[in-house]
């Protein structure tokens, strides 16, 4: 699984990255997590509010920090 966290370094973006890493670790999910900070790269996903959670190139969450439970539901589908 390929997970991307989109965000240019605001506090929320860091929180989302941290939460996602925790969920991945705790559930033994096989995934690579990349933080995307380049604005041109972020715009390709068509979002206007950061942070965003992208799983296998699909935008799942944007503009907010979801709870760990919600991330878990998204990752274990």
């Amino acid at each position, binding site marked *: 699984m390929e997970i991307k966290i989109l*965000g*240019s*370094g*605001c*506090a*929320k*973006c860091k929180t989302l990255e941290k939460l996602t890493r925790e969920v991945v670790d705790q559930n033994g999910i096989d995934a690579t997590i990349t933080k995307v900070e380049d*604005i*041109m790269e*972020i*715009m*390709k*996903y*068509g*979002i*206007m*509010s*950061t942070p965003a959670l992208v799983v296998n190139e*699909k*935008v*799942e969450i*944007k*503009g*907010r*920090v979801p*709870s760990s439970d*919600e991330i878990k539901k998204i990752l274990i589908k």
Partner: protein
Amino acid sequence: MKWNKYFVIPLVLLPVWFVIYHNLQPMTDWLVDTQLALTLGGHFTEALRFFVFEFPKVMLLLMLIIFFVGIIRTYFTPERTRKALEGKRTFTGNVMAATLGIITPFCSCSAIPLFLGFVESGVPLGVTFSFLIAAPMINEVAIILLYGMFGWKVAVIYVGTGLIIAILAGWVIGLLKLEKWVEPWVYQTQMGESDLEDEKLSFSNRINQGVQAIKEIVGTVWIYVALGIAVGAGAHGYVPEDFMAALMGKSVWYSVPLSILIGIPLYSNAAGIVPVVAVLIEKGASLGTALAFMMAVIGLSLPEMVILRKVLKLPLIFVFIGIVGAGIMIVGYLFNYIF
């Protein structure tokens, strides 16, 4: 609708909030007079009383309003705002953009994707600016604090004048046709199609967003509120009345532009500045001058300019500061004249 913790906890806390909020004055007096047994009327006692009363009051107001604003904001995503503004021309667009700027979730860190997204979908530059001016300048935290400290009239004046400045400044920028001063790469950016246009959130999820908003905003601003009110409490007891009158009073004709010039490089969030404004007014600064100072501090901030510099060429940044600054100045003089 599931009855999970996201419903139950806020529902239980609401009456608790109500009881505490309406008993703050007796609780303060009990703490200051009975428990600490301080002499009535002393400078330190009064300063302490001011802090012990004002700090919880402002924090309680903040928590309640931020919670509801957090929920309401889940209905106003930047994507929906953009859709509403698409194809809107000149004045109507400016009015809508400024109004939506108040309620759409915005932080300066997402100013760039937002700007790109607006421009990309054909929202005119002037309309985009109305949004970018209103969003940081008319701040919900500032509204609450102004309401808490000065009453609803000042809060309404702040929102109203902020809106007028955002609408007119954006409109003027639109008339000037300054697209040439937008960095060329902005127009070359290819924006992808989002497949998540209308995210359906459950209501418990929206409540959770409200709780998150409290944690996030109150968690970061409490220290500024405490500092601001502590400064206020100190000045309340110690600084002589009319101390500021010589510098920021009504009779000083240059006080408005001077406050704006001082305010622009100063950076503070809205929570930190309102208590300072309260002190200025109490010590003889006129309402117009103090409001102009506040708007310059939160509406025209250096960090935001640095962020916007990525998409705007320097002349446009200066035009932006100039027009908004002029707007704030007019408001300042107007209020000094009226009140």
